[in-house]
Structure formats: structure tokens, C-alpha cells
């Protein structure tokens, strides 16, 4: 395995395993609100994987090696895409497995894809942010963003349990509309996310190529 991928993949794999073990099990046993809340943690875990893999990364050393900045950026973005796909696949499979019990439905598939798409773009922005603004600043901004998101997710979860009129994300009008043709919407959302990722990767390549070695 490529050494750059091998080093970074440890962080992606460990966060994926923790997500599956700690949160994923609720998808398999809990009633439908689990599919409302648990996917929202996916961007948190993916961004945490990006940030932790970048801690201690030595781009100065990488630039000494016969590997181009373009190839490094592609490997990093490939890891983000691969990890996001793994989260998505895991949640989609659990959703499909619980289809007959009525816990999940077409809107669940669309919602999981939507959240994973957002998580993918957030992680890619995080990566580009690290190259542009450095790890400390990007970590701070991402941590603040994720903390607010988590608080909102927790508030949402509590609301779902206590208030009958609390908005259900999977039942929002937009999600419902997309769920009219769930597989088409899933493909379109996934395609859109990958297209945005591709654009961010091009930006990342431009930034890395024109940057100093240590960035």
C-alpha cells in the first residue's frame, strides 16, 4: 500500500470502526429516531479523521520524495471519498436491512445520502482549509462548527422524544420530494457531492503546487 495512504488510513479506519461500534449499533436496534440523529455524527467523525491524520503530517518530507503535490492531493481526497463512501454504505445497508420493519424507508436513504454528501464536502473543505490556513486555525473553526452542530443534533434528538410537533428531518418537504424517486435522488446527490469534491480537489492541487514545502 502507498505509504502516504497507509499512514493516513489508520485515522480514517479507526474513526470508522469507532463510529460503527459506538453509534452504528443504535441504527440496528433503536426505533426510527436513530436514523434521524446518528447520521448527523458522520461529518463529525469524518472531519475528526481529517484533522487527526493531518496532525504530525510532514509535507516538507513528502516534497523531498519523488511524488508530486498533485498525487498527494489525490491520495488525500481519495481517502476522504473512500471513508465517506464507507460511512454511507454502512448506514444504507443497515437502513435496507431494517426496511421491512418500517424503521427506515425511501426518505431514510435520501437523508443518509444527503448527510454523507454534506460530510464529504465538509471534510474536503477541512482538508483545503488546512493547506490554506494551517492546521491550528482550521481545527479551531471546524471544532466550533462541529460543536454547534452536535448541540443542535442533541437538541433535535431531545425534541424528537418530548415534543410531538418537533420537525423530523427525514420528513422535511425537500427530503420527501427527493424520496419520491429514492434511488435516482441518491445517485444525483452522490454525484453532486463527488462533483463538489472534484472541484475542491482541483483547488487543493492549485494551492499545494504553489505553496511552500512545509504547508
Amino acid at each position, binding site marked *: 500500500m502507498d505509504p502516504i495512504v497507509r499512514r493516513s488510513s489508520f485515522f480514517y479506519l479507526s474513526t470508522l470502526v469507532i463510529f460503527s461500534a459506538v453509534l452504528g449499533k443504535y441504527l440496528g436496534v433503536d426505533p426510527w429516531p436513530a436514523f434521524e440523529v446518528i447520521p448527523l455524527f458522520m461529518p463529525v467523525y469524518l472531519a475528526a479523521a481529517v484533522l487527526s491524520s493531518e496532525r504530525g503530517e510532514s509535507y516538507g518530507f513528502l516534497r523531498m520524495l519523488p511524488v508530486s503535490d498533485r498525487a498527494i492531493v489525490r491520495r488525500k481526497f481519495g481517502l476522504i471519498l473512500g471513508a465517506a463512501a464507507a460511512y454511507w454504505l454502512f448506514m444504507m445497508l443497515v437502513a435496507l436491512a431494517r426496511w421491512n420493519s418500517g424503521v427506515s424507508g425511501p426518505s431514510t436513504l435520501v437523508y443518509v445520502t444527503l448527510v454523507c454528501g454534506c460530510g464529504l464536502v465538509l471534510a474536503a473543505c477541512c482538508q483545503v482549509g488546512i493547506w490554506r490556513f494551517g492546521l491550528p486555525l482550521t481545527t479551531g473553526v471546524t471544532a466550533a462548527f462541529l460543536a454547534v452542530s452536535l448541540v443542535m443534533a442533541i437538541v433535535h434528538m431531545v425534541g424528537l422524544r418530548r415534543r410531538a410537533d418537533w420537525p423530523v428531518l427525514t420528513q422535511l418537504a425537500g427530503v420527501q420530494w427527493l424520496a419520491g424517486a429514492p434511488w435516482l435522488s441518491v445517485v444525483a446527490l452522490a454525484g453532486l457531492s463527488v462533483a463538489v469534491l472534484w472541484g475542491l480537489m482541483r483547488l487543493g492541487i492549485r494551492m499545494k503546487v504553489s505553496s511552500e*514545502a512545509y504547508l
Partner: protein
Amino acid sequence: MDTILEARNLTKQYEDFSLSGVSVEVRPGSIVGFFGPNGAGKSTLIKILAHQAPAQAGSVRVFGLSYEDREREIKNRVGYVAQEPPFYADKTVQWTARFAAPYFARWDGAGFYGLLEEFRVNPLKKVKHLSGGQKKLLSLALALSHGADLLVLDEPTAGLDVVYRRALLERLRAFVADGERSVIAASHVTDGLDQIAEDVYIMNEGRLVMHEDKDELLSKWKWIHFRDGALAPAIVDRLSNVQRQPFAVSGLTGDFAGLRQALEGALAAGDAKVQNAKLEDILVSLIKGA
């Protein structure tokens, strides 16, 4: 191939420093030295030549190829040693080699570990526990272990004790001995590289002050020591770094050939004598005069 490396009009602008229009040519089998005071732009130039930092203008071609098109091919043939080698601090020396090896087409693992043994660098030690000199030696071991045809070294002897410094200088001489490979090194003059460099570039404030073959340079620059009053004031005015002592005066000239005839009388009478200048003297004279 006439040139191993050719750089034209390299320009790089930082907030408080700029490298302006520097051109460099490196022939096969040569050791090229970049000398100058702190902040002269040597490290910036070395980084650009090794593709560690982008230039804002100008071009670099190595082995006739450009980094833009053939980065991987060029870097497989270039060994680079940074001023402060940027390894993964938490990893061991062995891990560092295992990480780097797959990227090099001609990696010589046995050679690498042989060099570590020679340099007395423990492969099981974490990089953060190595001294500055040991990090430099690790970097040199990496640069010398993948069949490089060009070494680009930024202050390679900094932090090394006299034993390793001499060993390194010998190794660099041996590296270019076949006439095919070359070395580029940036340095402060006093660390020994001035002894082995054949092609000398002197830099100051981001500009190239002088470029000359070292033998020619040393044949032009001489110290003239003479009895006070033995030389005409017009000759003394042509000397730099003039140092007056009781009854004796010393001065440096960069045009010994032009001064020789005027000195002949004093030399014959034993009132003056000529001494070879060191590169350090020339550097100081050029920087002071700039």
C-alpha cells in the same frame, strides 16, 4: 549532457526578502558552492532548485527536464538535504526509510543502513530524539541511497562535528569523481565546503554578486603585505580590507594580474609579499564593498 541543471532568472518575493533574477548552471562532475552571509538568499535558491518552493518567475531544468512535466523522474535522480530536515518527528529512523523507499525507483536499502552505521545513527531511535547533526546525517543517508545523480544540499555540514564534516567532504568529492554526477551546496564559507567547491557563486541580499571558477577566483584575489610607505598611495587605494599595523600594512586585491607590474619593484626589494586569499576574505570584501 552539457549541463545537469540550468536555472534562468529565478525570482521569489517574500514580505521582507526577495530573490532577484538569479541564474545558475551546473556542469556534470562539478561541485558548485553558493556562499554568502545570513539572509543572502542561498536557502531560498536551493529550495527552488530542488523544487521545494516555487519560484514566482524564471525556469529550472534538471537533466534537461522541467519539474512541471517530469517531477517524479527528476526527484528520483536528485538527493536533497534541507537546512532543517523535515521528517516525521514521532517516527523512527527505520520507519522513515520504510516510508520513503517505495517512492524511489533505485532505492538501496543495504546502502542506507550501511551509511547509518557509518554515521552512527540508531535506526530504532525516534527522529525527535536525534540531534540536529544526526538529523542532517539521516537526511544525507537518504539522499545518498537512491542512486541520485545530483545532490542539492543546504548547509550540509551545519551541526556536524569535525570527523563527520571531513567524512562528508570526502564523500562529496568521491560522488562527483566519475565526472557524471554533481553537487550543489549552499553554505557559510568557513565550514569546509569552500575547500571542495570548484564553481563558486557568491550571493548577497537576494542577488548574485559573483560567479567564477574557484581556481580563477583565487588567482585573481591576493593579500598584499607590505612595509608601510613601500607602495605608492595610488596602489594602496586599489586595495580593499586594508589593515594597518605598526610598520606593516595588508590589503586585498581582486585584480592581482593588473597590479602585479606595479608591485614588482617592492616584491623584488623584499618590501612586499603576496599571499593567497581565502574564499572567506573574498566574500567579506565583496559584501562590504556592495
